[in-house]
């Protein structure tokens, strides 16, 4: 896959350290499923975790800790998990593996709700209340994505089609990993609809109020 837009390095470190919430973890994992180079980079970032753990001042464990573990193993909790990598191979799926658990195997099966002319949305419920939200957008060719000031970080992964904004053209596998300071107005390239997976930070109440004031017509 020819991917041009990758994850921010700070994001890779947050993923490796387990700092991202459910919505952002899902977008990152879906990108990693599609991008060999970011997957390698994430692995390097996990080596940082290994290194840091290796040098931490050790904490004494209880004197019978190992015997306790062996007793659990003897009690039959020791069944080793076999390697099964067949799920990923599924040739007829156009959905990255981590996302399949949430939306199924085919983009065609996603149930869309029309939120504005040419703009369809599918909300994915996950995580705790107050955490970032995760949703998919399906935007018709030539349409501008509605301005969606959200007052927080946003991450968009293209699953099919393409859009263009001041940062360039974003096609399948490309991720726009943007902090709250970047404003952009993507326009979908002609030809086919653009389907993407989006995580946005939940704005604070105050910001949410302002956002409501600023976009009375289209709330996405």
């Amino acid at each position, binding site marked *: 896959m020819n991917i041009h837009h990758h994850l*921010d*390095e*700070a994001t890779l*470190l*947050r993923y*490796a*350290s*387990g*700092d991202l*919430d*459910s919505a952002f*973890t*899902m977008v990152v*994992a*879906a990108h*990693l*499923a599609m991008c060999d180079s970011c*997957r390698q*980079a*994430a*692995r*390097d*970032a*996990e*080596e*940082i*975790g*290994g*290194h*840091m*753990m*290796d040098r*931490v*001042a*050790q*904490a004494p*464990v*209880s004197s019978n*800790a*190992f015997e306790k*573990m062996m007793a*659990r*193993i003897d009690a039959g*909790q*020791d*069944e*080793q*998990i076999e*390697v*099964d*990598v067949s*799920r*990923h*191979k599924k040739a007829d799926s156009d959905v990255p*593996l*981590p996302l399949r*658990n949430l939306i199924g195997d085919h983009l065609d099966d996603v149930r869309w709700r029309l939120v504005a002319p040419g703009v369809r949305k599918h909300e994915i419920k996950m*995580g*705790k209340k107050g955490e970032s939200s995760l949703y998919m957008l399906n935007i018709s060719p030539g349409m501008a994505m509605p301005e969606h000031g959200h007052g927080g970080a946003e991450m968009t992964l293209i699953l099919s089609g393409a859009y263009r904004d001041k940062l360039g053209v974003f096609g399948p596998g490309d991720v726009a990993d943007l*902090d709250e300071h970047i404003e952009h107005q993507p326009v979908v390239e002609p030809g086919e609809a653009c389907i993407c997976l989006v995580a946005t930070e939940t704005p604070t109440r105050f910001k949410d109020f302002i956002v409501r004031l600023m976009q009375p017509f289209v709330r996405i």
Partner: protein
Amino acid sequence: MRSALNLAQNDEEVDRVDDPAVLKQAMVRVAQAQDREAFQLLFSYFAPRVKAVLLKAGSQESQAEDLMQDVMMTVWRKAKLYAPERGSVNAWVFTVARNARIDLLRRASSRPYDDVYEIELESDVASGEDNMFETERAERVSEALAELPEDQRQIIELGFIEDMSQSEIAKKLDLPLGTVKSRMRLAYGKMKSKLEAVR
């Protein structure tokens, strides 16, 4: 291998078992033969480290002990999923502990991490040559981290070991969030340039 296993039985000398190749061999023996002696070596080495990380991340003593048991149990159960050519045992055990933390303390799901790892296992880069390559990568990561200036190293430690979010780190150190992010990028950039020197 034999001498390393013997070492493990002498508590005072356990710390000498920090050769990545010895740990890798022990993992392979646990995976292939459910070798308990090899597992004891891994347990002696990792249990106190895993527990230390859990304590630093905010667990109470008894919870940390229980969670450490769960993490080490997962290391045993998932031993066959560890791919020596993909990275160090240290990094792998770190991810097992991280995932346990995500599942138990945050009440979220580590499933996406498992899915990515599954894709990783299946992709075609694994070979004997890469095995060497990965070992060298892990060494370069260590080198880069050893050379980090204190302000960057501290942020990495707070994020990876004390399980603090970027915004918590910013608050603790009284820094703007953007500074925390840029120090993380700087630290990562140094590691990356070391790694590119190997390519």
